[in-house]
């Protein structure tokens, strides 16, 4: 099966029902996308498919072929992704860091559709991403600052 990931076309030999998450992690060695629940409940596995944030743990590879897939390894090539990654570092957002790739992917999708999100917008967009360490206040601050910086650049 052929998948287009971070602009590259890659071959994966796996069962059709294999979730994109496990194709990325086990078959392609791209472990930045994390496993957290397997049911689309925690957001650790968030990637972009044609620009939308999707949970790769419940997205079979058969549904992702022919689409543009972006992962945490590639999101830095987009202005929103790059800026958010910088904000995450500048504000020392992570604690254990495990959920943060998914958080950044959800945040990047948010800023793409809503360049100046309110607190309520952030709540709604980020509600599907669990952080057990409790980094939410800094995630919120990093999204606001990222939005501000992207606004200044444009």
């Amino acid at each position: 099966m052929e998948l287009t990931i971070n602009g590259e076309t890659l071959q994966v030999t796996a069962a059709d029902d294999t979730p994109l998450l496990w194709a990325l992690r086990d078959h392609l060695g791209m472990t930045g996308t994390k496993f957290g629940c397997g049911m689309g409940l925690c957001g650790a596995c968030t990637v972009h498919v044609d620009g939308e944030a999707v949970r790769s743990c419940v997205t079979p590879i058969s549904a992702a072929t022919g689409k543009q897939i972006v992962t945490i390894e590639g999101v830095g090539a987009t202005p929103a992704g790059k800026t958010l990654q910088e904000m995450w570092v500048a504000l020392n957002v992570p604690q254990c860091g495990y959920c943060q790739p998914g958080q950044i992917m959800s945040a990047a999708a948010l800023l793409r559709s809503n360049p100046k999100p309110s607190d309520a917008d952030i709540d709604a967009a980020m509600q599907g991403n669990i952080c057990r360490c409790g980094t939410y206040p800094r995630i919120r601050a990093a999204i606001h600052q990222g939005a501000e910086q992207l606004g200044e650049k444009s």
Partner: protein
Amino acid sequence: MSALPGLFVGSGGISRREFLASLSALGGLVLVAGLPGVIRAEGIEKYGADAMPHGWSDDPVTFLAIGEDGLVTIVVHRAEMGQGVRTGMALIIADELEADWSKVRVTQAPADEAKYGNQDTDGSRSTRHFFAPMRRCGAAARTMLEQAAAAQWGVPVSEVHADHHEVVHGKSGRRLGYGALAGAAGKLPVPPRDSLRLKEPAQFRYIGTGKTGLADGPDIAAGRARYGIDVRLEGMLYAVVARTPVLGGKVARFDAAEALAIPGVVRVLEIPSTAPPAKFQPLSGVAVVAGDTWTAMKARKALKIEWEDGAHGSYDSVAYRGELEQVARKPGTLLREEGNFGAAMAEATRKVEAEYYLPHIAHATMEPPAATARIVEGRCEVWAPTQAPQVTREDIAAQLGMEFDDVTVHVTLLGGGFGRKSKPDFAIEAAFLSQQLGGRPVKVTWTREDDLQHDYYHTVSMEHLEAGLDAQGRAVAWLHRSVAPTIVAIFAPDPKHQAPFEQGMGLVNLPFRIPNVRIENPEAAAHTRIGWFRSVSNVPHAFAVQSFAAELAAAAGRDHRDYLLELISPPRRIDPASLQDSWNYGESPQRYPVDTGRLRRVIETATREAGWGRELPRGRGLGLAAHYSFLSYTAAVIEVAVSGQGEVTIPRVDVAFDCGPQIDPDRIRSQLEGAVIMGVGLAMLGEITFKDGRVQQDNFHNYQVTRMAESPREIRLHLLPTDDWSVPLGGVGEPGLPPIAPALCNAIFAATGKRIRSLPIGAQLSGA
């Protein structure tokens, strides 16, 4: 992973063993001048890091290397699970080394306590135990660089000093970078410990200043950080395991035909049952090994397994709660007694009684347990996100029948720990499976269902409290009966009482001045694996004590803050032993008394900053709680808003915190922020229940944790400043958590008049 690039600073130096040997030859009590780590001769009590298995090391050759390019590599031997230890340990060494943080790299030590000192990353003690040894590492290496420069210039070493990655000769203005000096410095002997010149606090560049970023920040943001679950080896197989749903249960029989028919499945193996107690042994189960994780997960569903439940097959949370209630209403083993509780109650003007319940809680680390193992030429190598590297290595050696020296445990980043990853059952599974597969590399991944249903759960507890008030509303009598299965149950056959370390977490060491006190611990048996969860027994004890203190204030018609301060009474330093606390977090009672002045100060600070007493709209309230734990002092004031439908939102939390000197203020803040959010989650949502011995929750839809929208909108942190570096360090990772649930419930009482005594709050307020 642990290989050090470049040149070693130093070529030998005194090993700790040699150092201890030289000391013991002196006999009697030996103090290391000016350093907080006290070494005692035999027969004298040891505390802190000295009392931990394998103690500590401060050998710079072990912990740092400097390359010819000037790059400093620092070895961190404690596990990183989000508390920031890879930044904290490194910045301590870097500061005393007078290094430039931008030229510092961090690498992780494998399990080897003989070399590094104790590696059990729990108990909020990494910085407390290793601040002094890590400072000495940095100072020793700095001294060697200064000596090398002085020798090269032919000047007295007293005329040179290290300055931001260079050594400077003040008189001539000559300078040499650390890279240029590393080779010569590495040939010098490590200077004796008592000759080291440590920095004055005013000279600290990174300690306490917050001028470093996170060691792993850029890697995490880029998705490059590698956790246990991310390990990949050539030719690796992937395994998931179906485990007995009941503690002590085992596989009766299984049929793997359908699973084996799925393309990609390599083997199906039984993991044998073990005799109780559970310890860290793998649970009885059936492992499916396949070419990828998804195939293994699918094939596991196709297994047909009959389980034999064993003795705990009737464990039922509802019935067990009833049992705990009954037990808590009768006298139990006496732990502490002052005055005469019964007589004082008989004369009390007013009597108050309440029971508080805390259910089992699961750690639910975002990275579920996972580990990878292989065996090559009789040597086993394991990669695991473990908080307990040495125990992991020992237990794997025992499980495989191998020598300790033939097992290597690489410690990866932990995607959350909270105590779960102190128990290496998952790593032993990986090693066992690799052995069964002829040494082939295999990764075991736990699914979320596995994690929630086979955790070492936070204990379930019933806390029964009674108090008598005099005519002025003052508390004159206090009874606390705490009933909870003990963590010791995973190590010993059927213990029924809380261990000293559990009693010392806010039960016996109640810091209130009340003339008649009685603290009891009736019996409770464990029917599942009980384990350390962040803050451990402080969570139920603080929930009960700090809720009850608020109930007494309300009964007396008094302001809660004023009443709490009166309960604590004047500032004084209490000997923990006088409170029947023989444990005191493993620290000296002289160095670490219970300081009620510090407890009062965090309460005064949190209430002042929160605007205690301010007018609030209807449905809003402020709640206060304070707790001493892990040798630090925390007070929280939570503002809640409760809607007509009983929905709780938290506009603001103020936390005042005193952990003594602050080494990494940003990570202290992040730990407190996280503790508030975890505390809100366990108060509002989290509950693991059992029926027929089986856990009823299996994923985040029915085991809920705090999400962004339910998090407090504003968390204001007030770190109590200290310029006094003689104050010994307190813990940071855990003490933020215990006051949160009682502060929240006290706020709900202030807002609604409804008293929550059973967690989680769940739907208790709807229809209120």
